[in-house]
Structures are given as structure tokens and as C-alpha cells.
């Protein structure tokens, strides 16, 4: 202001202003209500004897429970690995110019994403009712391998099939999106340098697709940890089923469910932290 006018506010303009922040009384009120509810809930959880905290403490590091936890982690890793390998194949098929390959891939993804994983698990478990023997060989030729279905479909193989095949359908879509996100110019540049299709996929397209693929796959791993609990319905002794086995004997249902929940919380929390760092790494550059 170069022209001090009569309408200028009173007071010395050079003097420091006192800023009075706007009050937010409703924020304070809402906070008070939330704290009160949380405190009541916590008090109730801590004092309600039905939670049986001593029992929780007793079983938290029980050998059986830890074995169940190990089985849960093994299943997660194995099913995710299956999902990634089959999913990559499906994604490449889906992007293929060959109509048959891309259609088969589409049908697979459509089917395994549409039928609930729980239903698939039970289906695989009862596969023996559909085919009593499983035979691998050359059609109308010699038999290479033959076994009774009930010997092949154990709870473990049924669990892997149910979780892994369904996961492959989801992973395939993630990988397809990742591959599609790599600009066409990258392939053109690699082709112009005389690279073959395998080298281009392995060295140029896939590493770049990984940046798009890794964060959602991290989410899928976290989902898989929890989805393994579905396997309890086919009597595979993972974390939840182990807890169920114990409370079926002792009737301490709630404390053992809490034990299982605490372990799920711990594993998922660790994975979430891991994923945070993984995502940060892939966001760079």
C-alpha cells in the first residue's frame, strides 16, 4: 500500500499481529466420545472373565499352535508361488495374439474368480468322487503314472489346489496389467536392437512390469494369510483348525480364537510393514 487511506485499519501496521486460531469445539467433543467408548471397551475386554486371558497366555506359544502357524505360513508361501507361476503363464497367454490361448486364459480367469475359494477347496477335497483314479500317460498309449485319487488328494494337495489355482486367476490379472503398463516404445526399441522375444520379455518388459505388479501382489499375500483359514473346513491343521481342535477338547473357544487372531494380527502386521518398504523401493526411479 503506497497510499495510506482514511479507511486503513487503526493501529501500527509494523507491530506483530496476534493470531487467534479458530476453535474447533466439535472436534474436541467427538474425541472425548471416541476415547470414552474405547476406554469402556478396553475395560470390558480386560475385566470380563469370559475372555479367559490366562488361557490365552497359556496357549499363545503352545507347540501345537506354533505348528499350526508354521503350516499357515507354508501354505501362504506355496499357494502364492503357485499363483505367481501359473498367473504369469496365464497373463502371457492372455496377451498372446493366438486367439485360442487368450480365450483359454480368459475362461480360466473367469471360472476361478467366479467360484468362491471355499467352494473350490471342498470341490478339490472331494475330487475322488469325480475321478476315482488319476492317470498320467499318452492318450491311447502307455501309462506313465497312475494312482488312486484318494492317495493323491490329501488335505494338503487339495488346499494347495484350491488356494493356488484361485490365486493364479487373480495374479494373472495383476501381471497382465503390469505387462500392459510397459510402453510399446520399449518393445520397439528392443526389437530394433535385434533382441528376440524371450530376451525382450525377460530383460526389458518384465522388470518394468514388476514395479506395477509388486504392490498389489503384496496385498494378495496379506489376503492369502487370512484365506488359508478356509482350509480348516477340509481338516488341514493350519492355525485356525489347530485352535479348533484344541477348543473342541477343552471348550475354551473364545481364548483359542483370540490366540489365533493374535497370530494373524502379528503376521499381517509384519507383512504390512514389509510391503510398505517394498512399495517405497519400487516407487523410486
Amino acid at each position, binding site marked *: 500500500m503506497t497510499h495510506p487511506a482514511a479507511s486503513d485499519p487503526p493501529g501500527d501496521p509494523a507491530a506483530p499481529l496476534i493470531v487467534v486460531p479458530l476453535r474447533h469445539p466439535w472436534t474436541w467433543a467427538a474425541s472425548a466420545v471416541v476415547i470414552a467408548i474405547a476406554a469402556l471397551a478396553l475395560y470390558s475386554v480386560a475385566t470380563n472373565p469370559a475372555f479367559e486371558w490366562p488361557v490365552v497366555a497359556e496357549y499363545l506359544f503352545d507347540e501345537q499352535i506354533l505348528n499350526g502357524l508354521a503350516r499357515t505360513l507354508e501354505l501362504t508361501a506355496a499357494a502364492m508361488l503357485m499363483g505367481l507361476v501359473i498367473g504369469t503363464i496365464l497373463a502371457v497367454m492372455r496377451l498372446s495374439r493366438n486367439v485360442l490361448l487368450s480365450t483359454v486364459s480368459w475362461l480360466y480367469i473367469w471360472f476361478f474368480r467366479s467360484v468362491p475359494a471355499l467352494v473350490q477347496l471342498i470341490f478339490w477335497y472331494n475330487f475322488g468322487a469325480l475321478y476315482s483314479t488319476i492317470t498320467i500317460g499318452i492318450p491311447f498309449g502307455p501309462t506313465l503314472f497312475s494312482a488312486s485319487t484318494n492317495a493323491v488328494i490329501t488335505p494338503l494337495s487339495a488346499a494347495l489346489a484350491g488356494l493356488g489355482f484361485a490365486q493364479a486367476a487373480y495374479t494373472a490379472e495383476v501381471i497382465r496389467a503390469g505387462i500392459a503398463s510397459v510402453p510399446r516404445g520399449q518393445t520397439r526399441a528392443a526389437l530394433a536392437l535385434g533382441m528376440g522375444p524371450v530376451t525382450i520379455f525377460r530383460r526389458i518388459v518384465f*522388470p518394468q512390469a514388476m514395479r506395477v505388479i509388486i504392490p498389489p501382489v503384496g496385498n494378495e499375500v496379506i489376503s492369502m494369510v487370512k484365506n488359508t483359514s478356509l482350509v480348516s473346513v477340509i481338516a488341514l491343521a493350519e492355525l485356525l483348525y489347530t485352535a479348533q481342535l484344541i477348543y473342541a477338547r477343552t471348550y475354551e473357544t473364545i481364548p483359542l480364537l483370540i490366540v489365533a487372531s493374535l497370530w494373524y494380527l502379528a503376521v499381517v502386521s509384519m507383512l504390512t510393514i514389509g510391503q510398505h518398504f517394498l512399495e517405497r523401493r519400487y516407487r523410486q526411479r
Partner: protein
Amino acid sequence: MTTGPQPMVRIRGLRKRFGHRDILRGIDLDVASGSVMCIIGPSGSGKSTLLSCINHLERIDGGRVWVGGELVGYRERNGKLYELPERHIARMRQRVGMVFQQFNLFPHMTALQNIIEAPIRVKRVPGEQARRRAMDLLDSVGLAAKHAMFPAQLSGGEQQRVAIARALAMDPQVMLFDEPTSALDPELVGDVLAVMKALARSGMTMIVVTHELAFAREVGDALTFMDDGAIVERGHPAEMLGAPREPRTREFLSRVL
């Protein structure tokens, strides 16, 4: 490779269509070994598609292309053209370097890795030898100090110079430039053009699609004006830019100058 009259690149009756649109309608073009051919023309005239047909990045719908006397993409026997398998085409592409408008460097590799990738994976050059050659090439484009940088850490002009070095690392017989300076800020164009001038002086056969008329005049041995998928006029750059014969060339030049 200056073996008499045979041109390094020979194109006869080249046709290309996308859907119902004719992109190239019968192109004839000869590029002599060691010469620089510049191609100008309005956007959509088919210049870039023409380049992509020379190294078979685009399949041609008619006509023929020879590079170094060898038919591109096909084998001719008993009056029939047989499509060549992928690996034959890949081998042919090693002899044709290409530089793109958008650089297309591999973003997950450093400048050095970008350059050594194809020699190591495709030509099976030993790693140490490939690295030494790549450093020489980076030095020749003035970027030896930035060999460990990723493309995102380089300016557009620097990226394009790395891209030129990457193409040269395969020791091509001919270099194709697809509007190499069109995506650059004006102050970065000069560095890239300087590298291209040095390359032309070293005797490299070059086909350059460009809007840089000054470059065409100074460096080009021949100039071609394309419009609507056909060659309208060709001649010596200085003469053609000074006194275009065709009205369409005249009109185009009056718009860009």
C-alpha cells in the same frame, strides 16, 4: 562397404496400410552407402512408418525393401515371398540402428547398461569388451561422466545421445533417425544434432526424418519430401530448399520456415 553402385537401402513399390487407410502408397527410394538421406514432410505423411518398414518393425503390405543387398523380412524363391522366422529378422535388425523421437531408453537400466544390453545378450560380446566399447561411445557423445545415471536423471538431449550410442553399439550399417530432436527443448537440440553431424562425417549411412531444415541443408546428401504416403519431390537439399519445384513442397516449406 562401398561396393559399386548397390545402394545400402533400396526400396521399391513399398505399400503399407492400417485398416482401410493407405499410409504408404508405392515408395521408391535409394540411399547410397555412406550418404545421409533426410526426409521431410507434414505429420501423418508416412515418414515414420517408412522408417519402421525398413527394419521390419512394421510389416509391409506390398513392395520390397533391401538393406545391404538383402531382402528385408522375406526370402524370395520361385517368384514367391516366404516370410522369414523371427530370429532371421532379428539378425537383420542388428545391422540397422534406430533412434526414436521419444528416446525409448530402458528406464530400469543405467546409461551404460542400456548400451551394453544388446551387444551382450544378442551378439554375445564379452562383458568387459562391451563395457569398454560402451564407454568409448559415451565419450564420443560427451556423456562418459554420466554412465551410471538412470534415464530419469538425464535431460532429454542427454537421453537421446545415450540412445544414439546404444544403437551404435551394435555396429549397424545404417542408422534410422525418427524425428530425433522433436521431443527436445530447443536449447538441447544442438547437442544431439552435433552428435549426428559427427556421425555423418564418419561415413555412416543415415536416414533422418526431421523438421530441422538447417540440418538437412548442412549435412544431408539428399532430401526427400513426402506427403500423403507418397514421395512428392526429391533432390539435393540446398537446391530443393532454395527452389522447390513442386507446389506442395513450396507450400510446406513456406509453413515451416
